[in-house]
């Protein structure tokens, strides 16, 4: 049996499979299907300093091999997240490796969450979400502006001792430029890709299928875009990369490793088959064994050119 241990700098995981932020709630629901500690890590839905109601309905719709969502980062706020039994305390009890995805409407907001989470027991890393396309302020605005991106990351960096992952937006011309910038400001890791801005219209009602008009596209439809961005980024920076975007099968995950991802995250696929992450963990094991690799590291970036 191959060794799935995954070294992401200081962060060491038992395997390279995480759940993507926003697609796994706060873990409680999927804990009914399998023990959360079987996962490399659980990345929770984006947490802000304040409670957030999110966007009006409808918030989701199906598209060809994908989906649009504009949840609008509904979340209980950082204080409730830390204290209410169904959030962090639940995850801690479940023994999950927890990565907290954070966002805000201003640099100060990002810092406020990071500060509150610093030193709290049971958190393995922070993921700075500068790439949500579904909120009016913050989110993608930070992820598509090099100056703002740098500012958020350098500021958060000062507020926490935890490893900092920066989650990049695909909605830029050259994602590797942003990777270089945020690594320069102290990001320990890069995760990508977040959803891509999209829209779908109901031709009978003539309305957008999403109340927010536009939403974020995820699922297998965007996998080729994600693979390309991971490949480009892996060739530009030296920090660990968490790849995501349309991973539904083991083969999809292997594609990301070959493109240069050190770990992967499963998003939309959880909604279709809750067992996806577990199936992929054992699938990776089988692939490594049958192809004669002793560990995941040998696969990462091992593209034949």
């Amino acid at each position, binding site marked *: 049996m191959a060794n799935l241990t995954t070294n992401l700098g200081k962060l060491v995981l038992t395997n390279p499979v995480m759940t993507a932020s926003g697609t796994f709630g706060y873990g409680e629901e999927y804990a009914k299907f399998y023990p959360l500690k079987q996962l490399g890590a659980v990345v929770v839905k984006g947490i802000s300093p304040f409670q957030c109601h999110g966007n009006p*309905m409808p918030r989701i719709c199906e598209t060809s091999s994908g989906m649009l969502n504009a949840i609008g980062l509904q979340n209980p706020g950082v204080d409730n997240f830390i204290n209410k039994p169904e959030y962090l305390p639940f995850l801690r009890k479940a023994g999950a490796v927890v990565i907290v995805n954070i966002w805000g409407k201003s640099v100060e907001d990002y810092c406020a969450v990071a500060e509150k989470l610093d030193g709290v027991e049971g958190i393995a890393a922070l993921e700075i979400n500068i790439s949500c396309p579904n909120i009016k302020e913050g989110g993608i605005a930070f992820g598509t502006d090099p100056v703002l991106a740098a500012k958020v990351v350098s500021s958060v960096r000062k507020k926490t001792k935890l490893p900092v992952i920066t989650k990049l937006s695909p909605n830029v011309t050259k994602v590797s430029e942003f990777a270089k910038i945020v690594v320069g400001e102290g990001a320990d890791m890069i995760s990508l890709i977040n959803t891509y801005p999209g829209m779908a219209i109901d031709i009978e009602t003539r309305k957008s299928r999403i109340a927010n008009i536009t939403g974020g596209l995820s699922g297998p439809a965007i996998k080729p875009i994600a693979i390309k961005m991971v490949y480009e980024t892996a060739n530009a920076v030296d920090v660990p990369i968490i790849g995501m975007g349309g991973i539904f099968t083991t083969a999809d995950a292997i594609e990301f490793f070959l493109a240069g991802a050190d770990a992967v995250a499963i998003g939309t696929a959880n909604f279709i088959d809750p067992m996806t992450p577990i199936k992929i963990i054992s699938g990776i094991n089988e692939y490594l064994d049958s192809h004669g690799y002793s560990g995941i590291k040998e696969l990462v970036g091992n593209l034949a050119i």
Partner: protein
Amino acid sequence: MCQFQAEQSKIINNCNIKGKYYRIDFMCEKIAELARPGQFVHVQIKNMGERLFRRPFSIFDVSDDGVLSIIYKVVGYGTCVLSGLKNGEICDILGPLGNSYSIPEIGETPIITAGGYGAASTYLLAKNSQTKGKVLLGAKNKDELILCDEYKRLGFDVEIATDDGSCGYSGLVTDLLAYFLKEAGIKIYGCGPNSMMYAITKMLKGTSKIAELSLDENMCCGVGACFGCVIKVVAKNEKGWEYKRSCNEGPVFKSNEIYLDF
């Protein structure tokens, strides 16, 4: 906290019952055993190709030997594909999901108001109820009317309303409900189009009666993880409301919880 799971379920019957309505029976022992009235299942319909989502359906009935039944209306792509699946084919089913109706207490008379496929959601409730009551069935016309005989067989009075008057009362089923509102000892349940559920909510505002209403929202994960299916419920905050997940805190809501913003 509810228990649920994914179960590979074999189709043992899939047939048209009337017009666009079908009944499908699955061998689905674990979910059938846990199912409570008003809960739903999230079905991965085979052969949907590029359409990814599961489809939610109320649990219509369960049998002691592990059969779980759904009554579904063909309204779009997924339900159309579903109607073409054959006996012996396997579907992956998640369930039982969501909360449930509370069973009427002894002495309470259930009044079930149901529109369209909503009638499927309340059948198990009627079946498990110790006191028999009334079922008010609404439909566009008599061809859209389902499950009358099934409810009668359970010993319920069935009253019918059709929009076009082709059967029973000519008008909305909520008009029928209005007749009974003043009666004592009744417990109101409802499932149907959201507009119907909101109409009932309005009728009850200012009365002391509280209905249990099942709401329909487009669902993605079905288990509470995505926040894609929320509805507004009354809350003690500056806005007066907050969002709750209809798949998790619902689909059944108390009428005094439901927030009306129109």
